[in-house]
Structures are given as C-alpha cells and as structure tokens.
C-alpha cells in the first residue's frame, strides 16, 4: 500500500514537471487545440451539408460527439511524443538514478496529458456551442459523458506511451500512430452512421470501441440519431467502453513500463 502511495506521489511530481513545461511553452498547447476547432468547422460546414442523419437530430449535433472522441484519441499521441522526447534527454538518466518508482515517468506523463485533453474538450465544446450543438440532458449525464471521454483518452494514452517508447522518436510516433488512429477514428460512427458503412466495415465500425465511446457520449448529451443500433456494443456503449478501458490499461501499463526500462537501458 505504501509502495502504491509512493508510486502515485512520484507520478504526481513528474506530472507537475510536465505541467510546468506546458506553462513555459504554451504555444504547443495552443496549436494542439486548433485542430479540433478545424475539425468541427470542416465537418459542420463542408461535409455537413451532404450528410444526413436519420431522425430529428441535426448533423451538427450528431457530429460533435464524434469529433470529441476523435480528438482525445489524437491527443493521446502527445503522450507518445512527449515520452519519446524525454528519452532523448539527459534528464531520464537522472530519473533512473533516483529512488523513485519505475512507473513514475509514465504515470506522470499520462496524468499530465489528461490536462491536455481537458483543455481541448473545453475548446471544442465552445466551438460546438457556437455552431449549434446543444446538450439536451441534465448536468450529471453530461458530466458523465465528459468523464467517459477522459477515461478512454487516458487508457489510450498508455497505448501511445508504449508506441512512443518503442519507436523512440517524436516524428516516428506521429507517423506510426496515424497508421492506426485514422482507421480507428474514421471507420466508426464518429462522422457517419455505421449502418451506412459497406459490409465488413459496418461490423468493424459496430465493434470499434471508438464508436461505443461516441455513442455513449451522444446518449449522455442527448444527441443520438433515431435509428436503434443492432450491435450489443452500441446498445450498451458505456459498459462496452469501460471493458475496453480495463483491457487497455491491464495490457499496456505493464507493457509500457517494461518497454520504458528496456529503452532506458539501451542508451548505455
């Protein structure tokens, strides 16, 4: 128990360091929040006019939850890039020679990235409200939706932590992550209804955890379309999303810690 408390405290110290760094170089944060704004505007005004959603919900309202889900996943590449950058700096040797928890660098990084994601969610929400998105449910439900987004993003950032440590350079992280983030965020109900996807892509879209997250968030905001989903995953989106969160954390926390120790030792 004391071990766990120390590990969390060490993670907190590293997270604080990361946040100080954001404060010193705020440009990074500003540019990161620009891209979700672009996505909202692009889909609302360019593609939005050619996409129809069944029922009374307007496409702009339907769209926002998709952009949210997509953005927090893109945001998780930050974790990978940040770690890859840390590994090239001498400060990692300092960390490794200190009697701190071996997981602290990773725990601290994934924790400070929750701040990134929270910021971009706020920015997106404001943009969404401007283009006509509204929450039709209560405060508790809406907060639940935001919480689920952050939780899923947190889990996903452990995947990116692993990728970042594995590939070892900031540029590589960005390239490598696009390879699987694109299909994951587009072959889903993020921007279109999965029923409209052709054959196998429809199945993939239904069972894609990103779809479940988007669906859960839509329900939380009252932005769902009228068509009831066929797949169990989309009928129980919160449960299905949480299962994925648990699986990702259980697999990628140990994997990433192991990779961190390996990557750090390689620098000898």
């Amino acid at each position, binding site marked *: 128990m004391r071990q766990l408390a120390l590990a969390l*405290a060490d993670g907190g110290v590293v997270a604080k360091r990361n946040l100080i*760094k954001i404060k*010193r170089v705020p440009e990074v944060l500003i540019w990161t929040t620009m891209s979700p704004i672009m996505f909202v505007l692009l889909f609302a005004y360019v593609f939005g006019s050619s996409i129809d959603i069944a029922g009374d919900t307007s496409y702009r309202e339907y769209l926002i939850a998709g952009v949210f889900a997509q953005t927090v996943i893109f945001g998780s590449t930050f974790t990978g890039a940040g770690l890859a950058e840390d590994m090239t700096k*001498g400060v990692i040797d300092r960390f490794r020679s*200190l*009697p701190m928890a071996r997981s*602290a660098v990773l725990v601290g990084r994934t924790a400070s990235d929750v701040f990134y994601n929270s910021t971009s969610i706020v920015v997106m929400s404001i943009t969404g409200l401007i283009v006509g998105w509204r929450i039709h449910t209560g405060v508790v439900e809406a907060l639940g939706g935001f919480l689920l987004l952050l939780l899923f993003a947190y889990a996903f950032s452990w995947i990116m932590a692993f990728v970042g440590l594995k590939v070892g350079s900031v540029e590589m992280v960005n390239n490598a992550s696009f390879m699987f983030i694109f299909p994951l965020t587009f072959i889903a109900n993020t921007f279109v209804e999965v029923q409209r996807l052709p054959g196998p892509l429809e199945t993939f879209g239904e069972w894609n955890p990103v779809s479940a997250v988007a669906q859960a968030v839509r329900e939380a905001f009252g932005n769902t379309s009228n068509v009831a989903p066929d797949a169990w995953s989309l009928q129980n989106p919160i449960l299905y999303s949480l299962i994925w969160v648990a699986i990702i954390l259980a697999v990628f926390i140990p994997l990433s810690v192991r990779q961190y120790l390996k990557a750090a030792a390689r620098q*000898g």
Partner: protein
Amino acid sequence: MTDMIRTEGLVKRYGEVVALNGLDLTVPKGTILGLLGPNGAGKTTAVRILTTLLEPDAGTVEVAGLDVGREPHKVRERIGLSGQNAAVDEQLTGYENLDMVGRLYHLGKQQSRTRARELLQIFDLVEAGDRPVKTYSGGMRRRLDLAAALVANPEVIFLDEPTTGLDPRSRSQMWETIQDLVRGGATVLLTTQYMEEADRLADDIVVIDRGQEIAHGTADELKKQIGGERIETILVNADDLPPAQTILGGISVGDVVVDEQTRRLSAAVDGGVDALRQVLQRLADANIAVVDVGLHRPTLDDVFLSLTGHSAEEVAESPEKTDGKKRPERGKPREKEAVR
C-alpha cells in the same frame, strides 16, 4: 576502512564491442578514485553500471555495502550521479529542478524546498535560481547538475567527467567543490580524461583503456612507474651543444637526448635537485649560456602516453574503430580538449 565501492570482474558487451573487460575497482570510504582513460575506454559504462542504469554481463558490483544487481532501489537512495551531459530539465528553473529531485528522493515537501534553496546558495546560483535552465551557461548547468546529485546528501557520489568542456575558472571551482565533498565524508568516483584533474583530486587512480585496467596507483606511483626525473635545458648558442652534452652525460643515468633545432638537451637523472645544481655549476664554469633549465617530473600525460601509446586527450578512439587507421599522433596532448 570500509569500501564504499567494489567491483570484481566487471564485463559489459554491446554486441561485438567489449566495453568493459573484467574491471576490478575498490574505493575506500572518504576517498576519491580517479578513473582515467580516453574516450571509449569504458569509463561511462562503468559509471552507468555502478549507478544502476545498466546491468553488467558478468561480475559483481557493490555500492555502499549493497549488491547493485539485487537491491538497486536501496542503492539509489544512497548515491548521487552527475553525468557527462547535464541531466537537468531545460524548461524548468534551477530551483524547480532541485525541488523535483528532492521530492523524488522522498525528502518531503518542506525539506525539498529548503534543500533546493540551500544548494542554490552553495553553488552560487541564487540569482539564476528562478530562471529556466535554458538560459544558463555551460558552467552553471554543470553546477546545477552537481547540486542535483547532492540533494539527498549521498554517501557515494559518481561524477562522470564533471569538468569536460568547462572553462579553467569553472573547472577549478568544481575541483574545490569536489574536495569539500570528500572532506565532508563522501566517497567519490570520478571519471576524467584530464591528467591534471586526476593528479589534483584523486587519492587513487585506475587507468583504463579498452575496458581494462592498464595501471593502478597514486599519481606519484604512476609517475615513478615510467621512470624518474629528467633535466631539460635550452641553450643560447647551438655551438655549445657538444660541450653541454658532455656535461650532462657526466651526470645522467641514461642517454642524453639532443635536439639541435631547438637547442634543447634532456637527460634522465637520479639525484633530483642536487643533480640540477651540479649541472648549473658546470655549465657556468664552461661559460655556456642557457635560456632555460629545469627539473622535469613526468606528468600523468607522460604516464598515459607510455602506457597506451596514445594520449588520453586525443580525439575519441572508440572501440569500434581500432583498425589502426586513426592512430592519434603523439605529442602536445594538453592543449587538445575533446569538445563535444
């Protein structure tokens, strides 16, 4: 006396390259061991193993009485490491760096803060303490890095080339700081390529090359190992060279080396100052005018040169390229510094 550092038969390979090939080290409490060698000799590898950053392929490692392989976490609580590349965060201020390190040593919030301010004071960084480290000069970064190594008052301190790239003033400041540490009871392992540094600081010196010990002893012992003193003199007139050679030859215990170009004579002697006095007397009696005359004791540079056939401060000769193509030339070692 207890040994604070002890290694036996340390071996580390990187693929084909053998970085360490059976290194034994012993450092008694309260002393400084100088680990001396050219770039690529294995100094940094040894430090990384001793500080738990790297696992050896073979051999035993003990630091502060603890087995490094078995209890790395406990070892980390008792050591401080200051590396070749200052391991501090650029974006953070000096104070924030030290405070963070204190927290990660689990000193607690209040003590970490107090200690950070205290170290800024000691290392003359009070004014710069609240500025981001990226605005610091090289010397300031090194001082901060050393300060970070000392946050938890470690018993054993590892300094990997602490003065490489520093200007002479910063270097001698660093030397004084290191001496103070040992006076305070710390045990230090110091790696360096500078003979002068080892000569000045180290109680004991281990010279390594290609991952192996090639000499071991105090600075004086190492110097004796390659022979005694020489008298060197430079004459005003080249015409005087033959008679001067005869005079030196009468006192020397070996050959007299004559360089006509520079009108320089050099002879190995036994009697030290007495021999010098005799030489001066006889040269004066023979009316031979001299520009310069002196008793030359071998420096550690000479030691290194004679032990390895190449100078310690010559450009990096990493183990990968030992095909003889890049045999460094001999001579003028001291001016050349490895700049990275």
